[in-house]
């Protein structure tokens, strides 16, 4: 009997019409319930906690204080600096990865020996675990005495530099740019490769200069890929954590503390659950405002391009 049936069907024994009927909803809901339970429910609990003075060191006492945590967060100049750090870190890295990744994409969008191998190798730094990146950069490259960068600087007659102490934010941005450039490159390269050759041909025949060519043909076609990079990186870079944990621990002082690292410190070093929750809510709001705005931008451009 089973030998006659196709092998893939033989496993589903019960008659299809009787018993448990699989409806689309029954197939979709398990995934939805799981995501609701692990993302939406905890988020609303975070919102709830953010209205209380709640410290794990003082259990029992958990007075409702309304928006006090938010007021503390937003009025302390130190916290505003952390918010600013978050934006500088994400924005700075985003701009650098777009420029370097875009340049690399254009360089790789030509035919030359070893092109495929180079593209494959170039995605490596994106695949390296963030904490490995941080630990290796901090110790082996940026170490003021034994680090490779200091050696390079002294070769050119300079003084050894304690990168993470003297230029903490720039160093962290450099590190994270190294990590995220392959992402930008990969997406932008794919975008470039979908550009029809005949358009460029036509432009060249019409005597367009390389700059005109880039401005009027490559760039408009590239917009979608650029927007995807901007959206995905914005979401990811606002959440940078492992790199900071592994390199500067937010220091010196609060020079490289961003919101995620700040929340980690408040929640897991000071056990200040109320304040950490309020900061978590702010991070979610910041991320979503930016993401929704960027998504709108993308869908608008796409619809104006006619699909």
């Amino acid at each position: 009997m089973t030998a006659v049936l196709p092998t893939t069907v033989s496993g589903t024994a019960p008659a299809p019409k009787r018993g448990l009927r699989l409806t689309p909803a029954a197939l979709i809901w398990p995934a939805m319930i799981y995501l609701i339970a692990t993302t939406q429910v905890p988020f609303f609990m975070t919102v709830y906690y953010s209205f209380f003075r709640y410290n794990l060191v003082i259990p029992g006492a958990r007075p409702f204080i309304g928006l006090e945590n938010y007021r503390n967060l937003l009025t302390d100049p130190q916290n505003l600096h952390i918010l600013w750090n978050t934006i500088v870190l994400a924005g700075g890295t985003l701009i650098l990865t777009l420029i370097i990744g875009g340049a690399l994409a254009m360089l790789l969008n030509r035919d030359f020996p070893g092109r495929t191998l180079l593209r494959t190798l170039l995605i490596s730094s994106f695949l390296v675990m963030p904490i490995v990146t941080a630990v290796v950069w901090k110790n082996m490259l940026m170490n003021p005495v034994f680090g490779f960068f200091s050696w390079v600087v002294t070769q050119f007659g300079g003084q050894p530099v304690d990168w993470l102490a003297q230029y903490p934010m720039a160093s962290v941005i450099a590190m994270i740019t190294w990590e995220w450039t392959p992402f930008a490159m990969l997406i932008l390269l794919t975008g470039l490769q979908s550009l029809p050759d005949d358009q460029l041909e036509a432009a060249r025949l019409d005597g367009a200069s390389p700059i005109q060519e880039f401005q009027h043909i490559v760039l408009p076609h590239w917009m979608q890929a650029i927007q995807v990079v901007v959206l995905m990186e914005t979401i990811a870079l606002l959440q940078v954590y492992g790199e900071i944990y592994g390199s500067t621990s937010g220091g010196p002082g609060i020079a490289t503390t961003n919101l995620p690292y700040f929340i980690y410190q408040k929640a897991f070093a000071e056990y200040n659950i109320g304040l950490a929750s309020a900061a978590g809510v702010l991070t979610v709001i910041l991320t979503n405002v930016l993401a929704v705005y960027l998504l709108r931008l993308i869908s608008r451009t796409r619809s104006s391009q006619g699909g």
Partner: protein
Amino acid sequence: MTVVPTRTGTVSDRYRVRNAVLTVITYVIALAFLFPLVWMILAAFKTEAQAFQVPPVFAFTPTLENFQNALPTYFHALRNSLVAAIGSTLFAFILGLPAAFALAVYPTQRAQGVLTWMLSTKFMPAVGVIVPLFLLFRNLHLLDTLPGLILMYTTMNLPLVVWMMHSYMTEIPYAIYEAAKVDGASVAQEFFGIALPLSMPGVAATALLCLIFAWNEVFFALNLTNSEAAPLSVFIGQFKTSEGLFWAKMSAAATLTVLPVLIFGWVAQRQLVRGLSFGAVK
């Protein structure tokens, strides 16, 4: 390999020189980019003294001593990373595949909304949920356990599975499903007989991405595990203080940690684009 020589007639020497210069520039930038990684891997084969040496040593007799030193502590973390990555990938597929199938084969008006909503859970920063999850895990005794870690990594990968598998499954010609329906196939038969086998390449690509993301995850690992269930990201994090640090040993451990992901990523590089951009750029 073969170019489309659209400009064969006009290829001048100037063009060729320009092209060669650009190629050299590309190689130089690529080498600069790969340097930190190469440097790390080189250090893994040096002695501790050589790893610290100024000026840096480039030529040396490679030693495997560091790997031997790193291995005993590495294995425990490796096991945790493997269990967490594979477990969460399996779990994400068990939950995500049926959903992707239903959204692809029975597209309703709400399907797009469901998909967008699933993507939007990716906008949720981990810090927005970590506090209640930490307290919940503490009460349920899930802290520092692999099931706890698997739960969170499943959350992380589930939207990716649904999106990617949805996009692969919508590429299957609808006529095949219709033919099966005419033959009286049940939903399960459509799923196991058509959708799943025909989207196997997508399953492989998505699984690789899930494994990479779970393997590299840091935030949940650091905050929800301690020693017992600590995966490789936590293990490597212990090397962050430079006092009494063993660079060569650290490099060996780091090399062992990133190598599987590098190989996976190189293999799946084409699928990376689709997965990373949620199919927005193909």
